[in-house]
């Protein structure tokens, strides 16, 4: 019998690298994931964001066939899982929870074990993978002497053995120091931008996901609450270009802006003015010119960065209040 892992995989040409429909997982009476519809596009860093216990690891374990779904369907690299699990996983690399190794073996020997399982051609990728994560010099030392950061990097090297189209990383920066986090972030961005891979990162660290990912889904209590491009998510479903403008005469500026088609909304604030542009951020320069042309001195013009954290807290607070009201009604 031919195992799909052994044969070159024809990956269906689909724009979605992960797709789930109504994915549900129950552990007895407890529902860990509840009808999750997730869409992860190719070629991006995608954050799977949620508080601890939200169902992130359960989701990853189901995608990888480590545990079975109670109901629903999923596709990985266009292959239905678990029906074509072998074919799908042949081009997937994953670190679930924390990277684990045989501590008494060297880094290189640990990779040799996984390479043997993946196939004969994979052994040639061991040295490049070790070099890619900067572990060539320490590859022949036992893993028990590695720091957590080195183990994380060895975990990524193990993922790279499959020449992955998709990397699934579960809380990859847990336990890393700030330098290690920065290094890890740069490595992920390089994989996406220069190597064309898709990286799926589960994390409870909002700031980390915001800095690393192009798109994200927010999961809470087993449900995907929202998903989309990072800017859209932070802005609450719409892309909003907001400016802080410091001027010498706020009343005069509001009067000028009030008649301008460049502005959708404007109001006074502590910093001067808060303005929402009608179009893209490039119109900020035109607005500046308009104000200056009307004799208003502009001392500051700064785009407001929409915070994912604010959006996340808003969503989870809303869920909290919904749950509380349901409990009160019950």
């Amino acid at each position: 019998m031919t195992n799909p892992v052994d044969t070159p995989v024809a990956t269906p040409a689909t724009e979605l690298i992960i797709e789930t429909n109504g994915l549900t997982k129950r552990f007895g009476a407890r529902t860990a994931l509840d009808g999750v519809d997730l869409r992860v596009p190719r070629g991006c860093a995608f954050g799977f964001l949620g508080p601890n216990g939200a169902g992130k690891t359960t989701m990853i374990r189901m995608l990888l066939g480590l545990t079975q779904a109670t109901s629903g369907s999923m596709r990985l690299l266009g292959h239905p899982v678990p029906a074509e699990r072998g074919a799908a996983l042949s081009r997937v690399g994953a670190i679930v929870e924390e990277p684990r190794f045989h501590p008494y073996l060297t880094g290189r020997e640990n990779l040799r074990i996984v390479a043997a399982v993946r196939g004969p051609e994979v052994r040639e990728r061991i040295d490049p993978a070790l070099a890619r994560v900067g572990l060539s010099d320490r590859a022949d030392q036992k893993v028990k002497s590695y720091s957590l950061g080195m183990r994380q990097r060895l975990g990524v090297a193990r993922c790279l053995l499959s020449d992955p189209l998709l990397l699934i990383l579960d809380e990859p920066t847990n336990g890393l120091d700030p330098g290690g986090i920065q290094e890890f972030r740069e490595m992920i961005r390089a994989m996406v931008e220069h190597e064309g891979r898709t990286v799926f990162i589960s994390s409870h660290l909002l700031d980390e996901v915001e800095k690393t990912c192009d798109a994200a889904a927010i999961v809470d209590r087993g449900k995907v609450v929202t998903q989309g491009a990072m800017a859209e998510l932070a802005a609450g479903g719409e892309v909003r270009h907001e400016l802080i403008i410091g001027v010498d005469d706020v009343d005069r500026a509001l009067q000028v802006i009030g008649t301008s088609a460049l502005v959708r909304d404007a109001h006074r604030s502590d910093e001067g003015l808060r303005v929402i542009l009608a179009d893209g951020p490039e119109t900020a320069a035109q607005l500046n010119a308009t104000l200056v042309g009307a004799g208003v001195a502009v001392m500051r013009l700064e785009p407001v960065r929409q915070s994912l954290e604010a959006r996340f807290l808003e969503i989870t607070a809303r869920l909290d209040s919904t749950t509380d009201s349901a409990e009160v009604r019950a």
Partner: protein
Amino acid sequence: MSTTIAAQMAGADFLKLRKKRGTLIWALVLAWAPVVIFYAVTAIQHASNPGKYGPAGGTASFHDGVRLLGGLLFGPLVAILIGVEAGTNDASAGVFRDLVVTGRSRLALFASRIPAALALCWAIILSAYALVLVGTFVFAGNLSTPDGALILNGLGFLLLTTGVMCAVAVGFASLTTSKPAAIIALIAWQLIASPLIVSIESLGSPRKFVLSQALVHFSPVGLGDDGRHAATMAGGTALFVIVLWLVVFLGLGAWRTKTMDA
């Protein structure tokens, strides 16, 4: 799955086993120490009092050597240690899930443990058997030495006994996924429960289902208590019992590996 990949996977499992220093050292000590001590003591006795003690080598001491190794004590202990290590290694290190996410079938992951464990177990047993042969011939003096047929029979018996015990240990350990639990249970069964069950003659023919009794049937030398409490059986029955043990425990190990949450 191609034979190349199967061989690679077994090779990877062998690497894990031979690099596990604690298990390897204990297995070597259990295999070599009894043989070395046996020949050293009998050689010293013979040297100190040749009139009372015969030479340490020869056919009789060969029988003793085979009893030590294959006589359901030290050889099987080596097999249990290595088999349990092979069955629990990935799960206890937490890397089983990393092997599962390669997409390789779980049954293939289970199956590759068996040849790896057998290879290491047999390599150690062969080295100990070589020590037995060295002692048998070097210290033979004027005594007769075993012929080629007896040497081959002894070798076959040792490989059968330790191979079956090793495979059963792989299956049982894969079922429990706990190294301490599997070692304690198997050693207790081998050293305490099996001899006890066999010695209760009132149990009658069900005693034939004790694995060690089926294995004893193939011994070229007398084992144990000279057959006073042995549950004698025909060759076909002994073979059936051995195959039954293998099928049951390898089947349970494979089932657990296939179905457990990784």
